[in-house]
């Protein structure tokens, strides 16, 4: 698989606060307009994070709506607007966990199997170069989804938040309510399991290619 044309950067890209604390404070006081602005600001980010955490596009909107509903109900309990992002991340992780646990036995629809338009990238009329890039993206999605799917939900969430969403260990500590040292151990084990799956997948691919 050639990955040369794609430039990584998502994992290291820091994603800051999209609204100011004053807006959060207003929403906390029950101002519905302020809450609407928060939803408008965060909906795409939440949809993206949920999509990568659960890996099924067809249910992403339902899960995201559940997250915003829980946010609406729990905003009053938020101690200070400064912890808003951690709070939102926690709601996102919890909702995704719940979903993954609930749907464990349901047959999966891979993101790579969905029509390209749903994934927001490909177009039938794009140039050959773009077409190639899209194919590479598809391969990446397929490979990573297959690796993540083979992992337990906790590993999947941890790896996605750290390596894909780019959360620091300090942020993860707050979001998952786990100490940094314990997180490091869990992350190491999750990576080892992911590496094992990836190796097995590539060995299988090589075997198929040689026969």
């Amino acid at each position, binding site marked *: 698989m050639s*990955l040369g044309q*794609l*430039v*990584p*950067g*998502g*994992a*290291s*890209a820091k994603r800051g606060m999209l609204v100011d604390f004053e807006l959060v404070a207003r929403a906390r006081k029950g101002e519905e307009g302020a809450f*609407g602005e928060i*939803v*408008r600001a965060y*909906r*795409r*980010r939440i*949809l*993206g*994070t949920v*999509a*990568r955490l659960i890996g099924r*596009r067809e249910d*992403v*909107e339902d899960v*995201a*709506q559940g997250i*915003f*509903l829980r946010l*609406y*109900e729990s905003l009053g309990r938020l101690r200070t607007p400064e912890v808003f992002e951690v709070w939102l991340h926690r709601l996102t992780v919890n909702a995704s966990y719940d979903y993954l646990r609930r749907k464990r036995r349901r047959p999966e629809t891979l*993101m790579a199997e969905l029509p390209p338009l*749903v*994934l*927001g*990238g490909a177009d039938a009329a794009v140039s050959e170069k773009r077409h190639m890039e899209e194919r*590479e*993206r*598809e391969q*990446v*999605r397929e*490979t*990573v989804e297959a*690796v993540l799917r083979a992992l337990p939900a906790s590993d999947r969430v941890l*790896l996605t938040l750290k*390596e*894909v*969403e*780019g959360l620091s260990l300090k942020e993860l500590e707050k979001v998952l309510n786990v100490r940094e040292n314990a997180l490091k151990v869990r992350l190491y084990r999750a*990576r080892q399991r*992911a*590496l094992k799956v*990836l*190796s097995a997948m590539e060995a299988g691919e090589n075997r198929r290619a040689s026969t």
Partner: protein
Amino acid sequence: MERRLDRLLALYREATPDPEPSADFFPKLWEQIEERKEVAARCRKWTQVFVAAAAALCLVFGVLAESAAVAPPAPPDVYSVEAEEDNGAESMLYAGFVPPSPRGER
């Protein structure tokens, strides 16, 4: 292999851009919020009704108990007459008076 995993995970972020929400994302969300608010309002209303009913019952029982304490039932007349007779007999015995037997025996 470690590097390959890192690279794949980083590329995965690029390969899965944040999707656009559908047109009914907002309306659906507000619908759910309104539904929850209605349920909460109904619960609040029932709680208020329950509390009001409990308070009214407490008031009624309180008034009944109060009226019972203010006007205790008068003791029956028979009882008071008997008590007076007993008292009379006791005081006569105390004074050393021996009532004659009905047949006149000693």
